[in-house]
């Protein structure tokens, strides 16, 4: 049994740090933060997303890929070469950590779509990348692309998150945003690809919770060409974000009004314009409403969003200090890295807290 063969249900810890000024900082803080919530994980998965870490390759898609075998690697690389110009490839640097075992081959590629292939596909380059990622993940046995955005990367493994961080030498990276996840799956396949964050392009999702709308959401999002290979809530949420943000063009705030839509009674109490808009969003994208407990931190190029389900059935705290923004499952996970906060609060259910870089992209 491995992830993707059945639906995986889990509880978790999440944390995120964001510098609004775009100032890059070391990955050490996010490890410290997630480590505090050790008890929320059970060693069966941890991971990080880091933004702004590849400034020298910021125009190229950074593919992070797990290989279970050399033959898988060979097959995959052939596919990549067929569709992309590979600017750089290397093993992702790791260090030996006793708690992290059975690691697959972990490779990184900086790529850009081959212009001829892209033109032939009649797709924009992002959609082209998405199609290729799905192709690898569904067709090439033993290969799994777990990160595919620009100037960002996902680092994940089976293990406690702090061990995973050390394993990937995360403290050696500098970025303007990090998110982290410690996993407590209630059934345990223990596959590296199943750890969080889940990502597609530059969208990453770390998630604590279990969404009861899962299959409704999954069957809907699959209609739009997404393949839910992992059968995890997080994967579905990531795809929904990608769909609504990138494909449909909703703003993050509007997305919050879809996936954590206000109750009808709340909508009806709003002024007419707002009411109509909320009603429209809820109706038009009804099947993308996510119910059940969740707290998520979504990372994307130039921004981060923290969101709770509309009943706030999972904990989540946000904090601010100067240009730094923090979000975590527990207050302690913020305090451990910044005790002197300007503000700390618990966002209401369904109320997305969105932070973006001042002046746009990094």
């Amino acid at each position, binding site marked *: 049994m491995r992830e993707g063969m059945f*639906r995986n*249900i*889990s*509880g978790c810890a999440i944390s995120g740090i964001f510098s609004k000024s775009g100032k890059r900082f070391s990955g050490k803080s996010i490890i410290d933060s997630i480590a505090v919530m050790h008890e929320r994980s059970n060693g069966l998965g941890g991971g990080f997303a880091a933004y702004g870490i590849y400034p020298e390759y910021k125009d190229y898609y950074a593919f992070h890929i797990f290989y279970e075998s050399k033959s898988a690697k060979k097959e995959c690389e052939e596919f990549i070469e067929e569709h992309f110009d590979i600017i750089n490839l290397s093993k992702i640097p790791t260090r030996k950590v006793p708690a992290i075992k059975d690691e697959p081959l972990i490779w990184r590629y900086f790529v850009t779509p081959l212009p001829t292939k892209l033109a032939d596909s009649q797709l924009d380059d992002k959609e082209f990348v998405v199609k290729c990622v799905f192709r690898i993940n569904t067709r090439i046995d033993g290969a799994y692309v777990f990160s595919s955005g620009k100037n960002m990367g996902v680092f994940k493994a089976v293990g406690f998150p702090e061990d995973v961080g050390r394993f990937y030498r995360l403290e050696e990276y500098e970025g303007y945003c990090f998110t982290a996840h410690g996993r407590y799956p*209630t059934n345990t396949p223990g596959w590296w690809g199943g750890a969080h964050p889940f990502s597609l392009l530059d969208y990453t999702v770390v998630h604590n*919770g*279990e969404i*009861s*709308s*899962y*299959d*409704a*959401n999954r*069957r*809907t999002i*699959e*209609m*739009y060409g997404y393949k839910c290979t992992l059968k995890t809530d997080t994967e579905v949420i990531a795809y929904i974000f990608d769909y609504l943000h990138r494909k*449909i*063009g*909703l703003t993050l705030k*509007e997305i919050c009004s879809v996936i954590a*839509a206000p*109750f*009808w*009674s709340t909508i009806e109490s709003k002024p007419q314009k707002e009411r*109509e*808009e909320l009603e*429209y*969003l*809820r*109706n*038009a*994208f*009804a*099947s993308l*409403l*996510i*119910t*059940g*407990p969740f707290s998520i931190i979504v990372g994307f190029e130039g921004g981060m969003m923290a969101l709770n389900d*509309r*009943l706030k*059935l999972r904990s989540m705290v946000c904090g601010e200090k100067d240009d730094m923004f923090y979000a975590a499952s527990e207050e302690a996970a913020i305090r451990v890295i910044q005790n002197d906060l300007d503000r700390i609060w618990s966002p209401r259910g369904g109320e997305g807290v969105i932070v973006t870089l001042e002046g746009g992209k990094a």
Partner: protein
Amino acid sequence: MAVEYIYPDYEIVRDYDRCIVCRVCERQCANEAHEYLSDKNKMVADNAKCVNCHRCVSLCPTRALKIVKSDHTFKENANWTGKSIKEIYKQAGSGGVLLSSMGNPENYPVYFDKILLNASQVTNPSIDPLREPMETRVYLGAKPERIERDEKGRLINNLKPQLKLSMPVMFSAMSYGSISYNAHESLARAATELGILYNTGEGGLHEDFYKYGKNTIVQVASGRFGVHKKYLESSAAIEIKMGQGAKPGIGGHLPGTKVGEDISKTRMIPVGTDAISPAPHHDIYSIEDLRQLVYSLKEATGYTKPVIVKIAAVHNVALIASGIARSGADIIAIDGFRGGTGAAPTRIRDHVGIPIELALASVDQRLRDEGIRNNVSIVVAGSIRSSADVVKAVALGADAVYIGTAALIALGCHLCRSCHTGKCNWGIATQREDLVKRLNPNLGYKRLVNLMNAWKHEIKEMMGGMGINSIESLKGNRLMLRGVGLNEKELQILGIKHAGE
């Protein structure tokens, strides 16, 4: 001929110790099964006239009556059942097609009864509907493929006409003619109070009920009875009836005896004439023709109302539905083979069509596979008997359900399946004035409202148990379902796992 004598199916049992000779049974039986013997000051009954509608049983103030199934029996066996034998006697006598009412009674699988629901434990909290909001509102109609914004970047409402329902249940098509004025009024008023919709069926709309238009679906069927501009305009939505679950491939027939003044006016046919709906629409011989009618109706109403296309669940229903989803229809209604009817040829009712559960599952999946599920809403009908059936249907992928028989039962129908006689003792499937008045809509509509509110409570309970607080998160959420006692193929079609998996 002696062979034509068939022993009555039911026997009226009277407890003479309890009978106070109030004669209510006698007054209330339109079949005249009860008789008062004045010389003996005693009530007697003629079992042959009894249709087992329970009117007398229900009204007997001393509970002196009961109806039992006759234990009189043929020398039947598993092959030659009493029913088969009797039907042959009847047909050998009459030379005619056998007629029946209400839904398919035969022992085919009821898939709803082989599907179980999930509930949350530990990893995900169940939600208490008494403490937390629990939403059952649904909108029916096509959803947009893309958003549009105005010059200021604000979202533009580009939704096609939608139907707003407070819960995913509507009253299905039952024509004025097949059911009574008071039954229609009950349905119309209940729909209005509940914030759902009822359906006129193919018999037009009585002018008195135009005021319930916001909660009315008007039907356009092959007979086109009572279809005119005002009829279309008075509605919230228009339904093209292509087929009916109880009698796929068959038209309708309202006997002239039921076509009185009011019905004649409403249907726009002469008093006393038979109202015959042809089997097909004579202007629809292909999917293109359907598309033309869909757009004709939209054109006629200024594109302000959703158009529903109702079909019977038949073998290649998924394919048909796919065609309809591309025809411009906003909603597809699928009627399973257990759906009710005022009258249908027995063989058709009992042997044609497929179960709604399978039809729904395959249509929903097919439309998703084709990426057009959001083009249309799916409404299913054909024996939704309880809130659990509603929840299962929604989880299989339905946007809403239609209930017909359940609504009639709420109004007093006792499923005696004698609608075709026109002597409904409960004032539902009759046009006889003295019988029609037995259904007081002031009580009838309240019973419908009660039933729906009860179901709504139950739906909320079940949703809450699953950790879902809004019905849209239940729609198509097949992981919430598990099959029991189903084979691989059935599970595959239903798109659900077996219990224990």
